[in-house]
């Protein structure tokens, strides 16, 4: 497993901390366009994900990629997470992973 560049768990607020770095986030798909997907992060911020996903897309997807701006990710890996997802838990995870327990993650 390639662990050379670990991706940080982010939600909308944390994304800006990792601009230019690899991140992963779970997004709720709002709209899907050619070349990009508009989604809502787990803390209700709008995120634009650039790239072309493989159809079909479920409601929740995880994208791993480079954070371009504080609300854009250029995704390399797309994973469908299904239609039901506990957003709150994930959000908490993001907070913990970037806060107190950072050392456990990156």
């Amino acid at each position, binding site marked *: 497993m390639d*662990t050379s560049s670990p991706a940080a768990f982010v939600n909308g607020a944390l994304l800006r901390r990792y601009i230019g770095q690899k991140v992963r986030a779970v997004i709720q798909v709002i709209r899907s366009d050619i070349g990009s997907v508009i989604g809502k992060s787990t803390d209700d911020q709008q995120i634009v994900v650039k790239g072309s996903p493989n159809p079909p897309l479920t409601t929740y997807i995880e994208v791993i990629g480079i954070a371009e701006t504080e609300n854009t990710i250029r995704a390399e890996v797309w994973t469908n997470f299904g239609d039901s997802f*506990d957003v*709150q*838990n994930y959000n*908490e995870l993001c907070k*913990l992973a970037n806060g107190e*327990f950072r*050392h*456990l993650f990156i």
Partner: protein
Amino acid sequence: MEVSLTAGAIGKIMSGEVTTEADMIPVLQVTELKQLKAYQDPTRERFRMGLSDGTHLHQGMLATDLNDLVKQGTLQFGSIVRLTHFGVHVVQTRRIVIVRELEVIKSNSDIIGRSVPGGKHNDQRVADSGVKLNTTGSEQRGSGVSQVNNIETGRSNAAISPQVDQRPVFGTGSSVPASTTPSTRVDSNPSAGHGVPRLDHARDPPTSYPRQPQPPPPMYANRGPVARNEASPRIIPINALSPYSGRWTIKARVTNKAALKQYSNPRGEGKVFNFDLLDADGGEIRVTCFNAVADQFFDQIVVGNLYLISRGSLRPAQKNFNHLPNDYEIMLDNASTIKQCYEEDAAIPRQQFHFCTIGDIESMENNSIIDVIGIVSSISPTVTITRKNGTATPKRSLQLMDMSGRSVEVTMWGNFCNAEGQMLQNLCDSGGFPVLAVKAGRISEFNGKAVSTIGSSQLFIDPDFVEAHKLKDWFEREGKSVPCISLSREFSGSGRVDVRKTISQIKDEKLGTSEKPDWITVSATIIYMKVENFCYTACPIMNGDRPCSKKVTANGDGTWRCEKCDKSVDECDYRYILQLQIQDHTDLTWVTAFQEAGEEIMGISAKDLYYVKYEHNDEEKFEDIIHKVAFTKYIFKLKVKEETFSDEQRVKATVVKVDKLNYSSDTRTILDAIDKLKTGDGSSLSINIKPEGSHYNADAVNTGTGSSGTRDPSSVQRRDFGLHAHQSGQSGNHYSSGSRPHGGDATTTSCNVCGNSGHVSANCPSSTTEPQGQYMGGSYRGTSGSYGGGIPRQHVGSY
């Protein structure tokens, strides 16, 4: 120091039993003190006292020698005195107590009891006025009502029926026409004291009291006519009721009304209902009505209203059903009257509680009835419990905590679940912590101590009491973070309460070793299942609504015999008895799962599985099924109990319930746990020092260390599985103190500094040192022991 007054002394004085100190030396309280101008000698003062024994009041005159006591203030209103030298003189049918000598026991004291002026002095001699019945400030039991000055007029009340005594004033809105009293008061002016008989009725107002005639008491106007129609207008406190009371009347509020119940007993059928009363004194009593009387009054009685009730009979209370603090209960009959008081009487409380703290409950006896108030810290949804006889009742439980730092489980049955229970659930779900007051809850010994509702219980949510407000304040300030020791959880909730533990805690906390079994919940994975004997032949005979399920033995002829039912059956049931090994991130253990849980886990009925294996001999399918079971994660509810197996004590765990792991809610639980961990982070438990020689058969772990310096999640996994039993516990403050070094069994990493697991002190987030690369390696290796000891750096090279 509470001095008690000589009860009944005044009564005796009035009846003539006691005339001098030779008969009795009573201890009385001065409830009135007035200065009179001496009739004969205007320059000398005389003091007139109202002497009370707690229930009756009488006038006495103070010998002038003792005047100084009053002037100095030693003898004052409220003083408790012992009459060492006194005489009772009869003057014109009136008895006057002349006090020649007395001892002041307590100068200043609150008025004890509520005194009724003695009933003999009803002479309507007008003369005087301005008698005040000062019973201010008396502490009522439980009701803390301030008294009323019963102001009477001196003169004009001859109209009042002579027999009427001064009614004790129960509250501001007293129903007593005070009009009656003045006369009595007036008349008891002692006349014999100085040897100069004073004719009471001749006394002029000016010579009597400084306080002159006052306007007729207002309450008179309120109640006059109604009261007069009372057969027995004298209202007595409920606590004074006894089977020997004559005609009595009580004024009280209905605090509880039971439903109209039909019954049939050997004597015939009938219906009955009862209701509870509370009066201004805090006295409570139950009133029961049968048959026709029940019909008559049932509709009339409304909870919360005030009624005047008279002419019932008293009988001893049935303590089984009647939990009020009264030895008697009232039975109404045809002659009884119930009259509603329309005006409010603030003196009579709506409810009276005798709250105990939750800490007290612990020491109380089982099955005792108590009132309790507390903050609802958690509440669970209604479950339906089926009793042995088959009836299903809804039940809801909640945790109540209070300032004593303890919490107890309160169980609601029946209707309470839906009504109050739902309200509380809503309040709690929205994040609130409502105050709940329980009246007449029974203490039960179900898993520690718990409180249950009974038929006559009442629940009050966020009531408007002093105690409730105090509780809310305390809770806001500190209660939220105070860990509450649960009386009910000491033995772990019976599974209703989701006590999450890790498997290692079973050993660490020695669960199951106390008298009662411990019920815990663990989230774990099945790693192995014993294939042999996964089921047994069971008796299918129904015993109530459950099958007997005892093991049946083959009779040889194809039938099966059950010992317990003493019968033989042709077809036996097959029931699961699975021996499983389950493991979580801390430890692993063997558990036994029976039929219900077994079916859930296997996904196939025992009978079918049996057939697959033995009848059809379909090994492949069998293997398949077995394999599917392994490595599935569930939430297990375990009953842990220590049992003796031929001289050996073993802690056995039985699976009571198996639930599929709901990741969402499980995550939340874990998040909560993390939060608690964070807040409780101050206390660093000392660590599990892991000395040498870890017994890993975890080669996996060792290979994992190759990745020292990386945060490799996979190595984390390996650690889990590679660990043996007997890991010393995780030492999260959240959990018990697992800080026992296990010789040679090093395993979990626990940080020296903060006591949390998962890292070592060097990496401890609460410490300032930078986590070093060796973190991973150090934790796994453990071989060179001291990672707990905070010298992980040593290990860097040791891979």
